[in-house]
């Protein structure tokens, strides 16, 4: 009677196989260890895309399954990036500074080293003092914990306040967006302690690692693939049982779920916080591949894009979210990266960099109106044995 989780969810196995195959192919053809057909920059793009797929899964859990249209999950993604970025930047600067000071006659004191790091990092915002938020920046372990803790605690507090007052629907979306905007605006300030609009940079360089970027990018690609695979399994497990029933019930009729005795607010809070943590992990893997993070990344529009990906891919099915994020973000990279040839019409030249946004907006509207199941809905058209 009782089957294993994988046996009951064959789509998980299919997804993991495709992901493994994809990872293998990229590894074989990549510039670093492989045949050199895929340039390092594209390996990074692919690795980043995997991270975007992971945050799309988080978005699908909170929106597609639980019915909460959060326009704030990119804030958690960004915070995750900042947390790992702090260690990367601190540690790399420390190594550089220590090397430089060691050239002198007298070995530098600890205080001198810290001072020099401070000047290096915060010079751009006219300071050399370490703000308190950098307290743990010298410890990789602690910063890795903060990757999950900071966004997790923020989401828990925010969610507790919002869900307890029974804010729902579009009001909740606006509230999450306001949170994101407030966070971005705060980080834009020079005295926020995170270098204002300069953000954190040089994140692609792993401190103390001599390996070339072609190899480092492969490591991050693998890590991203692993995180995506684990995240997919976790999400599939979460939605497979009664918990999945309850959150889909909350999406469709939360009052009814309450009358069954389920503490609806606690369920929402649990999913909101869990997905914030998944988003943060995705961000912590994304930004070292991007090399730089700044508050503009957290602008509310990023979270809206996330909703668009999930809608286009197909809400309420995990592979839909992955397809949406991968497809739209890769196509978007192509159009906005200048690779797409402009089309001169004589009287007007279609520049894809500008027009891509319009196409994206239009396809969002079209999908919402005419294909609410998104691209993932195409899989329903396949003949299935277990359907009569």
């Amino acid at each position, binding site marked *: 009677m009782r089957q294993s989780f994988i046996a009951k969810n064959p789509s998980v196995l299919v997804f993991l196989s495709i992901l493994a195959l994809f990872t293998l192919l990229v590894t074989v053809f990549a510039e670093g260890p492989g045949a050199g057909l895929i340039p390092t920059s594209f390996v990074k793009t692919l690795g980043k895309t995997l991270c975007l797929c992971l945050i799309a899964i988080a978005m699908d859990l909170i929106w597609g399954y639980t019915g909460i249209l959060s326009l704030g999950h990119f804030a958690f993604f960004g915070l995750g990036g900042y947390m790992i970025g702090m260690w990367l930047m601190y540690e790399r600067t420390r190594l550089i500074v220590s090397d430089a000071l060691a050239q002198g006659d007298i070995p530098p004191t600890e205080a001198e080293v810290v001072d020099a790091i401070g000047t290096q990092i915060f010079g751009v915002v006219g300071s050399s003092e370490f703000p308190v938020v950098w307290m743990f920046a010298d410890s990789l372990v602690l910063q890795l914990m903060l990757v999950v803790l900071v966004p997790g605690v923020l989401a828990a507090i925010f969610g507790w306040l919002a869900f307890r007052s029974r804010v729902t629907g579009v009001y909740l979306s606006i509230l999450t967006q306001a949170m994101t905007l407030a966070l971005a605006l705060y980080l834009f300030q020079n005295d926020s302690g995170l270098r204002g609009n300069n953000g954190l940079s040089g994140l692609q360089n792993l401190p103390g690692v001599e390996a070339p970027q072609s190899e480092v990018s492969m490591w991050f690609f693998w890590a991203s693939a692993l995180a995506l695979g684990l995240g997919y399994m976790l999400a599939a497990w979460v939605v497979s049982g009664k918990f999945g029933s309850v959150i889909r*019930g909350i999406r469709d009729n939360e009052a009814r779920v309450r009358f069954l005795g389920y503490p609806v607010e606690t369920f929402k809070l*649990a999913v909101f916080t869990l997905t914030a943590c998944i988003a943060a992990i995705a961000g912590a893997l994304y930004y070292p591949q991007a090399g730089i993070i700044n508050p503009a990344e957290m602008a509310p529009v990023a979270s809206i894009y996330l909703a668009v990906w999930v809608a286009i891919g197909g809400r309420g099915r995990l592979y839909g979210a992955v397809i949406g994020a991968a497809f739209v973000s890769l196509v978007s990279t192509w159009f906005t990266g200048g690779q797409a040839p402009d089309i001169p019409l004589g009287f007007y030249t279609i520049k894809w960099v500008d027009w891509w946004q319009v196409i994206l907006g239009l396809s969002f509207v079209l999908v919402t109106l005419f294909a609410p199941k998104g691209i993932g809905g195409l899989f329903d058209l396949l003949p299935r044995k277990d359907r009569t």
Partner: protein
Amino acid sequence: MSTLLEVSGVSVSFDGFKAINNLSFQIAEAELRAVIGPNGAGKTTFMDIVTGKTRPDEGRVIWGEKSVSLLDMDEAQIARQGIGRKFQKPTVFEDQTVRDNLMMALKKDRWVIAVLLFRASSADNARVEELAAEVGLSDQLDRIAGELSHGQKQWLEIGMLLAQEPRLLLVDEPAAGMTPEEREHTTDLLVEAAKTRAVVVVEHDMEFVRRLNCKVTVLHEGAVLAEGGLDHVTSNPEVIDVYLGR
């Protein structure tokens, strides 16, 4: 028999309109009660108050042998006290299978972690199948609830209600949209359920109420107009005036 639910002096108004006006109501354990009354009498609002959906402006709602006040609890807490409700419009989770609907309703720990780790045991599956048989949905278990007929959804909701094993069942117009045979089956089920728990049935159909063969409370303009056996209340001139004589 001891009182299970006691509602006393409850009033509620919507924008100045008194939907419930100083209503008092009691039901004992293992009692079956029919509530009748014209449209807008406040029958559904009464259920809303007991289940925590609507807060009364005044009055008390006291529950169980420990006499706890339900007014301090939210809907989910009240439900966990053992009060189950069937809505006037059938409300099931249309996107999910009959089995999932019943499994969700099954009396189990409602806490997040317990729900997350829950995997149905063979006893749970057996119980769900038993319930489905009871409400005549045995061969529909793996269908999506949204595809069921109106009557079948009513059944499913009754099944979910039984799955909760509540001490008090509030049933709002259970027979609406049912065929005569289905109505008869529903009566049997409610009478059977009332042997071990309290059941309040709101119903317009007099034949249905007669078959329930129980004490009847007549509501009118948010207050109790008459109470007693069906023949007693239907011979009350006031009742005839406001309700039966329409």
